[in-house]
């Protein structure tokens, strides 16, 4: 018995991490949907969900329950086995890939030395969920959606891959953690020296996650709902989950590769060290807002519960802020003595990482509220005749710059900016040809 426990010991910590990541991502995804609805609503001069909980905060839970309880319909002519398994593939691929994302220096499920490759490999399995789901439905719209999806994902994966290569060249490693560490070491986020690659990654990421303006596989006004037209209830919610998880995933990859992962902005500038206290400030601000709102509520009885809730939330936020500032000397367990506030130091990486991911996700939602949809041939043209050539040119110039700085001792950022300029020139030429 003890032997069994001992042999399971090495599995325990990863298991715990997996559970934390899984639960965290599920929560983020659920509230991402809420955030999307809210942000879109405010872009569109309306309020969005307001009914379930204060400001509709419990809406995701209500939605989830509704989807779970809905009737699950399998179309008569469908290939039942595939119809059943396809959404599961999508979700599995999206969630498994998170095991390779380094959320903080001390927190990721696993760090493999070919981590990035594995991540891309696993996330590319998600396509099968779409293809097989579209095919198994045995209906025209899903099939067309699946075909569009396939072509789109395969095409943009190439551009995505090339944009990653330039970051890899700079980092000199395929390990996700190593890439962030390389950025810390070089004292600059790769987005600043490889803006073209970052831009291409951003656009390709939108295309890979089927988001507007590249949401053709599920273009509502053309293909009803694309590949998941025939899906309902729980299976539909799986697709939904997979799609949003994929959004978080590509944002995480982009943040890791180009925005310095868990690093705070300008980690090498000492005078910006006060930024380390940003998490505390956020919670304090939250507490202040709660208290202010509670005071502002009308004094009548019907607002009593609202007020209590707000006060409770404010107190909770205050408590969290206090907890973050827990001094080291009362916590011998952390004992290294490096950080004055070990809890804060521990939360630091995750805080910045998620903040950047949310910024990225906000971009996704903003795009959705702003742009019309591309047509299929235009999407392909953009991918093959603009993005991929530019990405390749960018890789070449990036490698050249690296060579110049290594062989001739040029300053690396200067060489890279030169390369970027050259890439932009090429891009302009390509653009002109198209018009």
């Amino acid at each position, binding site marked *: 018995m003890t032997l069994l426990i001992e042999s399971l010991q090495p599995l325990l910590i990863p298991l715990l991490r997996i559970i934390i990541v899984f639960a965290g991502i599920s929560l983020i995804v659920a509230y991402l949907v809420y955030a999307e609805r809210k942000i*879109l609503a405010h*872009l*569109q*001069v*309306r309020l969005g969900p307001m009914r379930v909980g204060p400001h509709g905060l419990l809406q995701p839970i209500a939605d989830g329950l509704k989807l779970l309880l809905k009737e699950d319909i399998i179309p008569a*002519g469908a*290939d039942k*086995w595939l119809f059943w398994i396809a959404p599961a593939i999508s979700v599995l691929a999206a969630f498994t890939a998170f095991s390779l994302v380094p959320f903080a220096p001390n927190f990721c499920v696993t760090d493999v030395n070919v981590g990035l490759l594995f991540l891309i490999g696993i996330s590319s399995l998600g396509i099968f969920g779409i293809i097989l789901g579209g095919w198994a439905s*045995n*209906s*025209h719209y899903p*099939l*067309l959606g699946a075909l569009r999806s396939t072509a789109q994902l395969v095409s943009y994966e190439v551009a995505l891959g090339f944009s990653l290569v330039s970051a890899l060249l700079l980092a000199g490693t395929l390990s996700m953690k190593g890439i962030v560490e390389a950025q810390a070491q070089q004292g600059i986020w790769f987005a600043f020296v490889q803006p073209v690659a970052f831009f291409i990654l951003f656009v390709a990421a939108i295309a890979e996650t089927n988001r*507007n*303006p590249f*949401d*053709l596989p599920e*273009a*509502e*006004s*053309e*293909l*009803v709902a694309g590949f998941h037209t025939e899906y309902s209830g729980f299976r539909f919610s799986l697709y939904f989950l997979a799609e949003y998880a994929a959004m978080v995933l590509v944002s995480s990859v982009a943040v890791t590769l180009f925005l310095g992962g868990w690093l705070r902005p300008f980690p090498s500038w000492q005078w910006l060290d006060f930024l380390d206290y940003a998490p505390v400030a956020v919670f304090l601000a939250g507490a202040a807002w709660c208290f202010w709102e509670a005071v502002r509520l009308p004094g009548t009885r019907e607002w009593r519960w609202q007020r209590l809730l707000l006060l409770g939330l404010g107190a909770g936020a205050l408590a969290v802020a206090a907890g973050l500032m827990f001094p080291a000397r009362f916590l011998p367990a952390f004992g290294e003595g490096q950080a004055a506030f070990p809890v804060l130091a521990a939360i630091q990486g995750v805080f910045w990482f998620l903040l950047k991911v949310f910024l990225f996700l906000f971009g996704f939602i903003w795009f*959705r*509220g*702003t*742009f*019309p*949809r*591309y*047509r*299929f*041939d*235009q999407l392909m043209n953009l991918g093959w005749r603009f993005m991929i050539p530019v990405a390749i040119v960018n890789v070449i110039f990036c490698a050249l710059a690296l060579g110049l700085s290594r062989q001739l001792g040029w300053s690396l950022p200067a060489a890279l900016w030169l390369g970027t300029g050259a890439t932009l020139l090429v891009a302009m030429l390509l653009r002109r040809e198209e018009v």
Partner: protein
Amino acid sequence: MDQPNVTTTVLGADEIILNMGPQHPSTHGVLRVKLKLDGEKVIGSECIIGYLHRGVEKIGENRTYPQFAPYVDRTDYVAAVSNGLGYCEAVEKLLGAEAPPRARWVRTILTELQRIASHLLWLGTHALDIGAITPVFYTFREREEILKIFEKYCGARLTTHAFRIGGLQYETYDGFEEEVKAFCRDFEKKVVEYEELLTENRIWVQRTRNVGVLTPQDAIDMGATGPVLRGSGIRWDIRKAFPYAAYDQFQFDIPIGERGDTYDRYLVRMEEMRQSRRIILQAIESIPEGPILARVGKVIKPPPGEVYHSIEAPKGELGYYIVSDGTTQPYRLRIRPPSFINLEAFDKMVRGHLVADVVAIIGTLDIVLGEVDR
């Protein structure tokens, strides 16, 4: 694993038939389109309509002239005021009567407001079809203001029945002028707002340029009217060609397109909204005082004969052909529906385009199925 009994859709390298509608998000009602596809390319199409057919023309033969007026509101139900204007003027012509100036001025104002409302609805849904989900909320915001004016004027927002044979149903309410002026003042900025979202948006231009091109010859041959005809570059507007209501009193331009594509029709309608605003502002400044109803008698009984009267409805030429046999009911009442005839050009516009363009083309035709099917 059991041997699956899959009946796969025939998707050879040749053709498939794709059925769009009658329940489809972007067929604007119950239009059903059968598309013959080669891959995603359309090589033929057939519109199947009539799902909303209510026999309006038959009803017209069985109602007295005033009784029928509310029915016309329900043909193009997003431009009820225009329908009412056309019908009332047609019957007035049949009677040989004419509405007094004040009535004509108010009719013009309300009809132009209705044109703006109808175009706003079109803009929102058209953008939505092409994937821009935000403009629809902005346009509905402004449309709401117009509907509020209608509601204050006649108590209804959609099927207004605002006019009466011989003039107006109601006198304008207190503050009507101010509210219309306030709307016009704000609306100028709002149009700019829509244009900022779309006009120079690369994707919008790519999605609409050279899509659904209708040459001037084809437009005339297919009987297209309204913005569809003007988008093809023909400067023709019934408000200028055969002025009715009080349009001969006001200055306005008729925008036209150059290439006859979806983008041109978009620009034409955007400019039409501005011109409508211009007309409203001129009209509101010069509303004459006086009676609002001509003396047409309690019982409308036109002498035998027939008349065709048409107006420039938001969607095109809306005509009423009425044959009277001297009784209180029309002997024959024909509505020339602009949507129906504009939709006829659909097949010509859609060939050679992709499925995604079909949606854009349905949107640019600005059809209302209530009017197509009547």
